[in-house]
């Protein structure tokens, strides 16, 4: 076995302690950047987990800003056929059966950590990305609609007709299934927001907050630590990335 001699003269000591000092400072300088905007050629990773915090107390019944913004952002057309038209996000109005107490919340794909839709997809088109966003890979989707049967939140829609006016950042077409993708094109560009959150904030309600659940310094993580929040249908054990406050 080779024996290594440690060279501990003054020069080397200063060099190595300088390196140690700098490398202990570096995370504070660099890692904060990575949480917000990763380079375009870097793949999504589990360092992040993107999610939403929705405050039901701030959401008002006659406001539809999130729905309108989402439809515009993704080029979702209204064909006048509500039973078959796509809805990524919808306003859910709840009235208690006995007390009559009412509230309203936006409901969309909950981006579960254990998504039933991913389990049942025969081709693996419905998948969960490394950073927690549940997506449909429309190159592989065969349109069997099994994921729609399995979603506990009725989050998915099937495209029933030929489309012509798609927006380039959200390809969508007849015969595939789709749902809220947490504005993945904005997330990948580092914009750190979704269309619905942006519109809600612009409208002054501030009911939808987007952020990185894995980053303890993000606003959403701080709020999740501070306030009581719930998952919808938490008994299913899906660990959703979308949390609600005030329900």
């Amino acid at each position: 076995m080779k024996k290594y001699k440690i060279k501990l003269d003054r020069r080397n000591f200063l060099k190595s302690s300088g390196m140690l000092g700098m490398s202990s400072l570096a995370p504070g300088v660099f890692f904060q950047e990575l949480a917000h905007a990763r380079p375009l050629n870097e793949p999504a990773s589990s360092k992040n987990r993107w999610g939403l915090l929705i405050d039901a107390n701030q959401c008002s019944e006659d406001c539809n800003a999130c729905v309108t913004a989402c439809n515009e952002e993704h080029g979702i057309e209204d064909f006048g056929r509500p039973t078959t038209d796509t809805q990524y996000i919808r306003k859910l109005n709840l009235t208690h059966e006995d007390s009559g107490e009412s509230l309203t919340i936006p409901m969309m794909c909950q981006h579960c950590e254990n998504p039933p839709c991913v389990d049942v997809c025969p081709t693996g088109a419905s998948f969960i990305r490394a950073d927690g966003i549940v997506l449909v890979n429309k190159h592989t989707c065969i349109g069997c609609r099994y994921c729609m049967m399995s979603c506990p939140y009725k989050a998915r829609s099937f495209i029933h007709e030929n489309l012509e006016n798609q927006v380039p950042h959200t390809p969508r077409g007849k015969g595939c299934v789709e749902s809220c993708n947490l504005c993945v094109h904005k997330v990948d560009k580092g914009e750190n927001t979704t269309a619905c959150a942006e519109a809600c904030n612009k409208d002054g309600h501030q009911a939808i907050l987007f952020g990185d659940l894995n980053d303890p310094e993000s606003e959403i993580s701080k709020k999740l630590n501070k306030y009581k929040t719930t998952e919808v249908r938490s008994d299913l054990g899906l660990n959703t990335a979308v949390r609600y406050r005030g329900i």
Partner: protein
Amino acid sequence: MYKILSIKISLALFLVLFSGSSITHENINHNIDISSGDKCVEPTDIMRAQHHIFINHQSHETVVNGIRTKKYSLNNCINCHIKPLADGSYPSVKTEEHFCSACHIAAAVKVECFDCHASKPYKKVAKKNIEDSSK
């Protein structure tokens, strides 16, 4: 007698239906706008033979890994290759004026990309192309 006749008929049908592979590339009109750049991201002969390989690979990288680099991005191809017609509107992917369809209609290979993907550039880039062509 009938056996030989049926063989002749099937042979004729086979030749008629499968002669599409004899279409060559030289006699097809292309509508490439060279104002936005003087060449494609890869040499022409490589693109001609392998554009679908680049597209397929990039589709996997973008959807599954979230990599949205510009070079092989389909939107980047479209922004360059699809230029508006004389009246300012964009050609439909079902007509031969569309860059991709010019070859694909002749070769009878369906471009299923545009079932989902936008076959024309987004409004912002569209304005730029019109401005450039009017200069």
